[in-house]
């Protein structure tokens, strides 16, 4: 068969396939189904693939091969694109994938926790013995700011000074941007063979430990801890999770197991995204609690401690119990 005969024989098929694929892609975007066209699609796609392979093999003209290549590419994309509904995916993630993934990599979780709280405790011990060390870790301006934020006579603890509700919303926006940004950067830092993630965890741990210890030394301890304990269940855990996800990326490069580094990294990235999704959700919750609850002075310290403890219990139970089937 010459090239001309090839074109003459199959031209109508190609035009028909182009019409069908246009209809199908539009229908999919509008979430309709189109029965008749859909039934014919697999067979005509397979025939088109055969024709492309034939054209390549026989060295037909470039413009025919390019045209067939484009049609096959569109058919290929339509056939293999996965389109699970987003709400179902979210529900699956919350109930099943996130807790399971965290349990699966629980050792990385404890490593990340150690990298964060180890230095925090270390710096605390040092500052308790030698209070001036806090100025080696934080700038004096910041130390003063923190002292002021938790001073006993304040109307609201934390960053925002007055009690207006739109001020709380400002803080909500601030916490979302700041904390989730830190979480994303910690995760991304893991790509540098885990070093970026570890460094950010250590840095955050030292910072947190220094501030906490200094305020306790100053006497604002209850104000500070009752502030933190409410949203800390979500926020501290989330930062550890971000570090865990980053370390997962790093370790996939260091010890890829039986796969190539490229494959190991791709799979680790996919799996650790489940952790990142959960981290984002937890940080949004933390921002809510931090902006609208933690900083209020109308609630007693005791109440805050109790609520905080309950939230920690909720988080622990979530990771221990959810998504299990037959002892996973």
């Amino acid at each position: 068969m010459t090239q001309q005969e090839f074109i003459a024989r199959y031209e109508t098929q190609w035009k028909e396939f182009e019409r069908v694929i246009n209809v199908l892609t539009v229908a999919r975007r509008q979430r309709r189904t189109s029965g008749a066209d859909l039934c014919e699609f697999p067979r005509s796609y397979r025939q088109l693939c055969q024709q492309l392979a034939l054209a390549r093999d026989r060295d037909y003209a470039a413009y025919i091969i390019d045209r067939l290549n484009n049609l096959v590419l569109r058919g290929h994309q339509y056939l293999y694109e996965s389109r699970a509904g987003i709400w179902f995916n979210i529900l699956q993630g919350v109930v099943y994938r996130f807790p399971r993934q965290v349990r699966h990599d629980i050792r990385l979780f404890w490593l990340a926790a150690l990298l964060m709280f180890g230095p925090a405790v270390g710096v605390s011990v040092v500052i308790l013995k030698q209070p001036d060390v806090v100025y080696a870790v934080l700038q004096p301006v910041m130390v003063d700011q923190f002292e002021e934020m938790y001073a006993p006579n304040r109307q609201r603890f934390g960053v925002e000074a007055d009690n207006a509700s739109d001020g709380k919303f400002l803080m909500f926006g601030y916490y979302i941007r700041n904390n989730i940004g830190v979480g994303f950067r910690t995760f991304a830092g893991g790509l540098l063979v885990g070093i970026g993630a570890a460094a950010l965890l250590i840095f955050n741990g030292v910072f947190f430990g220094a501030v906490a210890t200094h305020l306790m030394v100053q006497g604002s301890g209850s104000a500070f801890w009752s502030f933190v304990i409410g949203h800390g269940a979500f926020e501290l855990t989330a930062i550890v999770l971000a570090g865990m996800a980053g370390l997962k990326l790093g370790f996939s490069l260091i010890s890829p197991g039986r796969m190539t580094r490229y494959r190991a990294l791709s799979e680790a990235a996919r799996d650790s995204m489940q952790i990142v999704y959960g981290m984002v959700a937890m940080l949004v919750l933390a921002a809510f609690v931090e902006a609208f609850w933690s900083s209020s002075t109308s609630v007693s310290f005791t109440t805050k401690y109790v609520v905080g403890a309950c939230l920690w219990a909720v988080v622990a139970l979530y990771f221990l119990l959810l998504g299990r089937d037959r002892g996973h």
Partner: protein
Amino acid sequence: MLETAYVIETPEGVRLELSPAGLVVRCLAWGIDLLIRMAVYVVVAMGLSLTGNMGDGLFLLVLFLLEWFYPVIFEVYREGQTPGKRAMAIKVLQDNGIPVGWTTSLIRNLLRTVDFLPVMYGFGIVSMLLSRDFRRLGDLAAGTLVVYVEPTRQSIHLPRVQPHPPPVVLPLPEQRAVLNFAERAPRLSEARAEELANLIQPLTQSEGRSSITRLYQIANWLQGRR
């Protein structure tokens, strides 16, 4: 010869070809996106500066979304093309040719943080130059590729002459070479065009000006004109 085509073998056993987009095109697309983001930033800032604390909170949220999710939304809902990429006619695909989903797009965009180090996408640029398919670190981790959107090439503009078949069946790369020559020869100097045409004298069986004309005739024939 430098061949940058990216070949996918589909489950049906047929080869698909894509052409990865290089460094300069991607930089330009990023630049356009940056200008758009800055314009949105300025507009939103001006609008919300009038509304006090609530507006400031909203502004911070908008900033957050712009920083991290601007590329993701477009890549997921606009067939892998942010406005900058659409302007440069390139798009993001997974390395098996399928459009990107949420997780893939998030991986490649969250890891921009690392690509940006040490300064102005340093690591990203190095990665693109070293990788075979111009992938930055985010692309490598997410398994994606930035390719040119194939325009449906109708016909390239050839000098119109009477078509004449080549004396032998030409394989595809040589067909492309003849077509490319016919497309560009009118823009070359006469001497240069003759010099090139004389290189394949066995095909054209002539020299000089008539060799060029014979190549035009073969190109027209390869195009499908009879």
